[in-house]
Each structure stands twice: as C-alpha cells, then as structure tokens.
C-alpha cells in the first residue's frame, strides 16, 4: 500500500508546492518592484508618469531623472543584491551542510569588505572618496577576490575528512572576520576622517548610491552567479548526504565545491561592493523557504533569489521613506528584522545544535 495523492503525487513530495510557491514569490517580486518604482521621498507618481507616456506627452526632466536615473537603477541593484545575498546564503549553507552558515556571520562579507576597502585605498583614488571609485569595476572585482579568499580559507579551516564542523566554521568565521577587520583597520587608519565616515556608512549598507554606472559594474558578477547557481542544485542535494554519498551518486564533488565557492564569492563580493554590509538576508530567506517547501535546492535556490530580491526591495522602500527626505541605511533595517529572527532560529534549534 503506497500512499499516493489523488493527483498521483507521492506523499512527502513537495515539488508541486515549491513550484506554486515560486509563482507566489514571482508575484510578490512584481509587487515589490512596483513599490520600489512608485514610492519615494518626492511626490513623483509612477502611474501618472506612465499615463503621460502612453498619452504621448513629454515627461518633465525631474520626473524622468527620478524614475529612470534614481529609482530604476536602485530597483535593479536592490533586486540583484537581494537575490545574490539570499542565493549565496543558500549555496553556502548547502556547501557547509549547515543551515546557520551566512555570508555575514562567517566572515565572507568581511573579506569582500576588505577587498572593497583595498580597492579604494590602493586604487590611489583616496582623495576622490569612497564612492568616486565605484565607476570602474575595480571595487567589485577586488571584493570578489576578498570574498573568494575568505570562503576558500573557511572551507579549508572548517572541513576535515569531508566533515564540516559547525563550531569550527563559526569560530573560524570569527577569526577570519577579526583578521580581515585588522587589515581593514590598517587601511582605514590611512584614510582621513571624511573617508572614515564614508566607510562607517558603507559598512551599514545602503542602496542610496545606486546609479547606472555602479549597477552596470557589479551586475555581470551577480548575474553570472545567479544564473550559475541552479546548476549546483542537484549536487548540493546529494551533498546533504555527505561528500562520500554525493560521490557515490555520481557528483564530481571537488568541482561542485569549487563551483559553489566561486558562486558565493562572486555574489557576495559584488553585492557587498555595491551596497556595503547588508546582513541576515542570506540566512533568513533560505531558512523561511526550507520551512515552507523543504530543502530541495532545485526549488530552494530559485525561490531564495525571488524572495531575497523582494525582501530587499521592500526593506529599501522602508529605509528611504521612514525618515524622508533623509534615509536610514538599509543594513539597519535588515538587521532590525533579521537579528531577532536569527535568535529565534538559534533558540528553536538549540536542542539539536552540536556546538
């Protein structure tokens, strides 16, 4: 007697549910994208502008700049950064076989930050200030290098004989973050007090500096990572059974790990370079989705991208409307939501954590 659903689905198969969730999340992303284009400190109305456009009348320069040069690049940046952080979180958790791995927690973001700061200081562009450098792709590329180095080091530190220790991973992450912080501190010491304040704001995370030049510089890395990630899903599923079992199931384990590290490094590096330290998206989003539709990475990675993008867009809408015409750094918004959520996960799992 095999338990079969009326539609012929086997009980315990959540693939249908995951697919339906994808549609819901896609709709949510559309709503979030609309909100991101429609809501802002200025009273510019998207529907009115669209109506004008359809009626064939000219849109004034201010409206055009606000919609096309301010809100649109910010929408795209927010979507890519949110999706990148969430997908990177899911991939990192799959790689470490641990749902608590988060790019921010295990020092990967710190590595990306060090790369970005190095680019700023060593790029010889210090006088132009932090943001002056974002035009060229130097910052995203060095941030990528920094996060790649961090993930690789972390993997070497935390994995022994194919087994990744949670405690070693978290402690290794802390050690890595401390070391990168020391290097960053050295570079920051060389900066003047104006840049110091820039760095403080940058570390809080913000999409405020989103512009076409920055978006286009960081987009290739993030898009490549997002498009490559689904190819890892079968391997990450098998890896959930351990490296040996994954190998038995025909997965080229070493290649899978390298691929996962590169994807995480590219996504986190580029996202950090463009938006600073935005935390908790990488842990909250995949965790929620695993609760809702299960840990199958084929659905998890796609849905994480959709939900991460939506959440960051909505957080950004909050960050720019709550103290308008000024702005709250978005990292504060995500931390305020994500911090308690992370604690909740920890408390729920307290019994089963092997730390």
């Amino acid at each position, binding site marked *: *007697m*095999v*338990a*079969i659903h009326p539609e012929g689905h*086997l*009980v*315990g*198969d*959540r693939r249908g549910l995951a697919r339906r969730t994808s549609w819901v999340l896609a709709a949510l992303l559309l709503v979030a994208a609309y909100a991101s284009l429609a809501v802002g400190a200025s009273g510019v109305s998207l529907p009115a502008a669209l109506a004008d456009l359809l009626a064939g009348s000219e849109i004034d320069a201010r409206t055009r700049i606000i919609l096309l040069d301010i809100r649109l690049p910010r929408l795209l940046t927010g979507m890519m950064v949110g999706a990148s952080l969430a997908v990177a979180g899911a991939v990192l958790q*799959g790689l470490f*076989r*641990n*749902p608590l791995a988060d790019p921010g927690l295990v020092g990967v973001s710190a590595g990306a930050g060090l790369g970005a700061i190095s680019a700023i200081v060593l790029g010889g562009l210090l006088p132009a200030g932090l943001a002056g450098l974002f035009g060229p792709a130097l910052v995203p590329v060095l941030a990528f290098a920094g996060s790649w180095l961090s993930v690789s080091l972390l993997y070497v530190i935390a994995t022994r004989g194919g087994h990744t220790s949670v405690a070693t991973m978290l402690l290794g992450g802390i050690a890595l973050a401390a070391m990168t912080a020391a290097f960053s501190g050295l570079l920051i010491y060389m900066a003047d007090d104006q840049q110091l304040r820039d760095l403080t704001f940058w570390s809080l995370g913000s999409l405020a500096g989103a512009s076409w030049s920055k978006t286009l510089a960081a987009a290739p890395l993030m898009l490549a990572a997002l498009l490559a990630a689904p190819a890892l899903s079968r391997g990450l*599923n*098998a*890896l*959930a*059974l*351990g490296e*040996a*079992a994954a*190998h*038995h*199931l*025909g*997965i*080229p*384990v070493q290649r899978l790990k390298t691929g996962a590290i590169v994807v995480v490094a590219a996504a986190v590096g580029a996202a950090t370079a463009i938006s600073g330290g935005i935390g908790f998206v990488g842990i909250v989003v995949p965790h929620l989705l*695993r609760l809702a539709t*299960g*840990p*199958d990475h084929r659905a998890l990675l796609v849905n994480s991208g959709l939900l991460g993008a939506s959440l960051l867009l909505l957080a950004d809408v909050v960050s720019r409307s709550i103290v308008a015409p000024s702005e709250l750094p978005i990292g504060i918004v995500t931390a305020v939501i994500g911090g308690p959520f992370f604690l909740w996960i920890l408390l729920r799992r307290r019994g089963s954590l092997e730390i």
Partner: protein
Amino acid sequence: MLDATDVTVTLGRRRVLDGVNFQAAPGELTAIVGPNGSGKTTLLRAVTGDLGYRGRITLAGEELSGIPAWRLAPRRAVLAQFTPLAFPFTVAEVVRLGQIRKGPGSAADLTPRALARVGLCGYASRPYQELSGGEQQRVQLARVLCQVWEPVEGSEARWLFLDEPVSSLDIAHQLQVMQIARDFADVGGGVVAIMHDLNLTAMFADSVALLAEGRLLEQASPEVLLRDDLLSRAYGCSLRVSTPPPSGPYVLPHAARLG
C-alpha cells in the same frame, strides 16, 4: 566481475590494507568479514572508488580509477554504515536522491516501489531526521536500490556495496534486508557486503572474504571458510562452528537457504 589484485592502501603512515586479492562475481553475494580494524571498510571504500590505492581494481574489466564519478554512479550504489543528513528532507525526498538518471525508461517514479521494498510504505512524508536509526538505514537502502533498480542492465551487472547493512536492525529486518540483497544477486546483480554476523553470513553469502590486520586470510564459500581454526585465529578468540541440525539450544535465524 569485480577484481582486486594486490591492493594496498596507506592512510597517513599506516598501511591499512596490505596486498589484498579479492574477487566478487555478478549473481553472487560476497561477504567481507573480519574483526574490528581489520580493513573491511577500507577494502570496500577502495572497490567503490572512494580511496586511492596501489595495485589493480577492475570493474567488468575496466580499471576503476579511470572511471569518473558520473559513469560509475549508474553501475554501482553504496550504502554506508551511517548516513547523516544535513537538512530536513522527507523520506520520499531522500529516496528520490537515488534516482540519478532522467529520460526514457526511468520516467516512472521508483520512490514508492523502493519504499515498499524495504517495508516503509507509510513513511513517505515523514521527516527523515525524526526516524529511528534502523528506519533511517532502511530509507537509505531504498535510496540505494533506486540508484541501481535493475540488477542487470543490458548485459552488464550492476553492483550493490553495503557496509554493515544490518548492524542497527532488529532480527526481522535483518532478514528482510539480507533477503533484498540476496534477491538482487539472484537475478544477476553483484552484491558486496561487510558483515559482522557470521550466522547471517553463512545463511546468505556465496563467497566470504576474511580479513585480519589488513591482510586477506582467505576467500572461499562459507562452507569452506567458516572453520574453527581459521576464525579463532582471525578473531583472536576460541570459536566453534556447528553444522545444522543444531546440537544445542541456540537461536538460529531461519531462512530459505537453510530449509
């Protein structure tokens, strides 16, 4: 045919396997026995392609180390002693991980059939991590069966490698699992299993390889190999082999081959 010739494995500085010759034939259940630390698991890991080795191992005439993981996977499946699971998959999702091939011929979902085979029909939607150790082991067996569902494909036998498949099971399920392995061999597949229980080995195996201290002492049929002197020497304690009918009150698992 699985053929290992003069296989030596060194882990760190320790020589864990030393010049082992080992054969397993399709259509047979080959057991690997020996005391703890004798190199049983190392031998199994060598023939599943998990470990580097010196010597020669061939699968159907092909040198094992030259076969990439993706080509090896459809030809053999491996059940470990214990398989940890990182995320809260359901039983059905775990079993489906074994269905590595897509396309015509494999379109049918094997998951319900594999679960039925190991007697876990009602378990499909249960979270794997909440099952008992024995149940988890049977779910993993179902997954492994999915991977090599047809014991013979074309003219080539497929292989099941089992590392102590019955160690965490009660006596009824021990018999059930051994019977599944026996059936797999009976229709032409190859089975290699590490065994601790010599009575079950005597009941189900066609060939037994006895290891001690990293060396192969002997490989032969159970009737030939299970001798007082050899076993006592290998295990380092006095053992007596009785031939049925039993000459005293002890529990003897009853199975088809004895009847």
